């Protein structure tokens, strides 16, 4: 038996300022490279962009200082750096498409989304005094999540793109409600599990050495979860169903501390994956394109064309990359969304890609650390859920692009083109900031008290 005691916790607002400055420098430098190498050269627009980056970073820093003074100092800068890199890469892809005669404005649209995302996240931090308030809306969140998932199936509202029906058109813009549903479900799972974890873990019959919960304890959450999975299968959204399944199992594990859930979850997943592969032709094609990606037959038929082009792109990037603006990322279809990691891998090389993944690692670690530090069960589950969701989502995307697992479409948080993903992920960061503020507040308060007493 041992207890872990924090000897000194630095508030770290100064570290955050330094890190934000580096993050801003990354965002501005990336755009400068893109403009100089692929675009019209460095001109006045860069100055405007730089001013905007500095202004937003400063505003975010001041707001966090005022409203969440003990929040984690690393979270915000890491996300800023990722966001800046993503925007620069999208601008680079715009230029590449322009060279090939296709006029796109990914960067412009995404800059707007990033702005909305950042500002709304800051508003969440400012308005939400305590994450525990969200626990009141446990079931509301569950219903909202389900409705959000169902919206694309509504006739007239939903839009089908490339076989997946996961978009809705609102005011001429297409939104992906599934991204918001992810956050809603994290809140629902957390709120439900925190009230029922004891009965889930302790009551119920024991089968094969695994304690199964009673149906009435697990029922509501199982219904919501099964409905979510069914809807996503109907919408042919493979990646998202995988994400939801993993999120559910992980949160159940965190809540009940029973490793048996992980074993059961992985087993169910294996069964589901094999069944989906044999039952649905589009899933079977994904397996084929993954296992035999480099077969001439599969490649020529176009099944693995995108995947292999992505691999070629990353290979031509090598260790240090071709340099931002000097590669040809648009040879890969959907270089701006699903394959943004391949685009970044080509132009920044393995070194750059590893740095990007390390930044994600830092964000995920901070989320899990906040979960350990915070004292209420709801906050623990929300933070762990958000952190795990980001880690799993990234694994599914990067694993798919690098041919570790079959390719499924999911957005890369903060990097890929897509407004819903950008805004929803920023909200997630806002929640994490809020939870980490609560988690570190007690420790820093007593450290300050100690300093005063001395």
């Amino acid at each position, binding site marked *: 038996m041992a207890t872990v005691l924090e000897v000194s916790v630095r508030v770290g607002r100064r570290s955050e300022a330094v890190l934000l400055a580096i993050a801003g420098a990354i965002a501005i430098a990336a755009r400068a490279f893109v403009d100089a190498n692929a675009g019209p050269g460095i001109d006045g627009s860069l100055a405007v962009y730089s001013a905007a980056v500095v202004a937003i970073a400063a505003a975010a820093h001041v707001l966090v200082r005022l409203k969440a003074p003990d929040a984690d100092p690393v979270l915000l800068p890491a996300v800023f750096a990722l966001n800046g890199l993503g925007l620069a890469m999208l601008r680079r892809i715009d230029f590449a498409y322009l060279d090939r005669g296709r006029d796109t404005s990914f960067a412009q649209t995404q800059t707007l989304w990033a702005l909305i995302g950042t500002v709304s996240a800051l508003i969440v931090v400012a308005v939400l005094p305590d994450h525990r308030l969200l626990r009141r809306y446990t079931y509301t969140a569950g219903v909202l999540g389900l409705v959000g998932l169902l919206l694309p199936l509504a006739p007239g509202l939903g839009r089908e793109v490339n076989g997946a029906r996961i978009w809705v058109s609102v005011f001429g813009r297409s939104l992906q409600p599934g991204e918001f549903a992810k956050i809603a479900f994290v809140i629902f799972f957390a709120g439900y599990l925190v009230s029922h974890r*004891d009965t889930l873990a302790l009551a119920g019959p024991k089968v094969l050495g695994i304690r199964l919960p009673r149906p009435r304890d697990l029922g509501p959450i199982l219904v919501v979860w099964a409905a979510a999975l069914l809807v996503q299968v109907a919408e042919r959204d493979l990646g998202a169903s995988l994400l939801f399944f993993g999120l559910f199992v992980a949160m159940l594990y965190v809540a009940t501390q029973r490793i048996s859930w992980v074993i059961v979850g992985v087993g169910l997943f294996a069964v589901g994956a094999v069944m989906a592969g044999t039952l649905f032709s589009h899933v079977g094609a994904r397996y084929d394109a993954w296992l035999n990606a480099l077969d001439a037959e599969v490649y020529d038929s176009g099944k693995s064309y995108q995947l292999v082009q992505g691999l070629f792109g990353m290979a031509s990037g090598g260790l*240090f990359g071709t340099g931002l603006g000097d590669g040809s990322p648009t040879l890969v279809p959907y270089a701006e969304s699903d394959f943004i990691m391949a685009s970044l891998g080509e132009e920044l090389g393995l070194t750059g890609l590893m740095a990007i993944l*390390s930044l994600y690692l830092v964000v995920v670690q901070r989320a899990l650390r906040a979960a350990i530090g915070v004292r209420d069960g709801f906050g623990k589950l929300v933070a762990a859920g958000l952190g795990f969701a980001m880690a799993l989502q990234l694994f599914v995307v990067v694993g798919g692009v690098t041919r570790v697992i079959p390719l499924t479409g999911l957005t890369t948080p903060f990097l890929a083109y897509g407004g819903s993903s950008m805004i929803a992920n920023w909200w997630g960061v806002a929640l994490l900031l809020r939870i980490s503020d609560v988690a570190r507040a007690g420790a820093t308060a007593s450290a300050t*008290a100690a300093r005063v007493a001395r």
Partner: protein
Amino acid sequence: MSQLSVSLLRLGFLVLLWAMVLVAIAVLRSDLYGTRVTSRGKGRNRRARHDGRANKRAAPSRASTGVRPGAVSTRAPAVAHLAITSGSLKGTTVPLGASPVLIGRAATCTVVIEDDFLSARHCRIFPEDGRWFVEDLGSTNGTFLGNQKVEDPVPFSMGERVRIGATTVELRA
């Protein structure tokens, strides 16, 4: 621009990226190493002897300095904290600051314990005149300091245990 400077700039950007990562990790170090693991029970004394750092940090004894033990400390004085020694939050420690600590099932409490035998706002631990007090907030199943049922605020001194529901809370230095 010459080829060399282009390459240098390109590598410079990668260095900038890694600088971000490394500075971030440097900031996180306080979280990785800024903790002290205290083991309890049997292993405690044995470990303390073998742990060189613990010896170095120990306050000089009275014999060597002539100072009353505890009057001077070589590092930041250990703040009082609550250690939860049994129940669902077993092993958790809660640092105590200048503000009262509310224990109960309600989400608004400082220490939220999921225990069916606890009231929503069960008891309060608060500092006054440099001492700690524990007070029952009209809980259904009561708060016990040792074997004594607590109603009005009673002094809660170091090493004493408060029992609420299935949870035992100990005040430690």
